[in-house]
């Protein structure tokens, strides 16, 4: 196994997961699909396309799937994970750019951003765009990080942050994206973003019921009072 693993959390993504895995495998990366107790044939399709499949026995949400994926990566000796959504909206061909930025900048995490200058996003409702900027502003105020797209699930992560995440990672909505950034930023991990082009989802259903913009806004407004739901060991210098 190489030291880079692509982790794809997937819930009922049989329509797209095959293409995602195939394009990752074509770039010669190891691909781990964490099947979050799908009710369709996500696991079979992914396996056939050449992915290592981890099947969660119960639905845990994106954060649970990711932590299992991180754990697997760390256990098999990987030092870098690139996280890609299973619905085909992330540009797999830019994985190399994320990793390159990670190495050259000496970062612990690099986020692929739709909204950084040069990035491309599928059309977003104004409400949703607002909610994301609110999250971004909250993140900047509370951790000093400037990330224009804190809800992006297209990210490269490497040790020591990867090992820290494998031990402790939140599983509720926005925990795996916004809160993970907030806590990592506060604990001194080095995080940057680069612009990427994202598509609209290629099939399947989005996994949240309440409008994402409403939940995102609520979380941004409550986090100063509730604090974060998890913690990480501080980054040791060096």
């Amino acid at each position: 196994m190489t030291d880079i693993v692509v982790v794809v959390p997937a819930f009922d993504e049989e329509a797209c997961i095959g293409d995602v895995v195939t394009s990752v495998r074509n770039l010669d990366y190891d691909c781990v699909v964490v099947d979050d107790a799908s009710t369709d044939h996500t696991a079979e399709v992914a396996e056939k396309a050449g992915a290592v499949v981890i099947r969660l026995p119960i639905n845990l949400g994106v954060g649970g799937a990711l932590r299992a994926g991180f754990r697997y990566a760390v256990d098999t000796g990987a030092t870098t994970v690139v996280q890609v959504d299973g619905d085909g909206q992330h540009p797999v061909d830019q994985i190399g750019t994320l990793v390159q930025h990670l190495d050259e900048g000496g970062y612990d995490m690099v986020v692929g951003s739709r909204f950084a200058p040069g990035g491309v996003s599928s059309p977003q409702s104004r409400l949703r765009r607002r909610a994301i900027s609110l999250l971004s502003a909250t993140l900047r105020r509370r951790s000093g990080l400037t990330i224009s797209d804190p809800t992006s699930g297209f990210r490269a992560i490497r040790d020591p942050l990867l090992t820290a995440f494998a031990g402790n990672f939140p599983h509720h909505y926005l925990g795996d994206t916004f809160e993970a950034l907030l806590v990592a930023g506060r604990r001194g991990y080095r995080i940057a973003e680069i612009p990427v082009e994202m598509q609209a989802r290629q099939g399947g259903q989005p996994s949240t019921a309440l409008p994402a913009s409403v939940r995102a806004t609520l979380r941004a407004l409550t986090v100063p009072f509730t604090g974060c739901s998890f913690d990480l060991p501080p980054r040791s210098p060096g």
Partner: protein
Amino acid sequence: MSTAVKQALVLALGGVIIMLVILALTRRRLLTTRYTLGWLGVGAFVALAAVTLPFVGRLGKVANITPTAVLLMLSSLLLLAISIQLSISVSLLQERLRTTAEAHALLARRVSELENT
């Protein structure tokens, strides 16, 4: 028999019934010891309330609340405390279940890997 005594008897009966139900549930292993003890305490509290009712009446007089209202208030507070405690338990269990499910998935993967070699 005065009304106060009748009230006290009804309350005490209620307390005893609660305790009996809890004991029956425990014997059928539907409740763990931890919760049995808590609920037995609640039963005992209700049974004892029969004795402490006159005191409750006096407590109410201070704030000009009827004894019934004081009792209702106390029981609501108790129920609230129990719900909060249960929420805490559920949150903790969720986290443990999650960790177990992840470990299970990784082990299942490892086993199938070993079986295929």
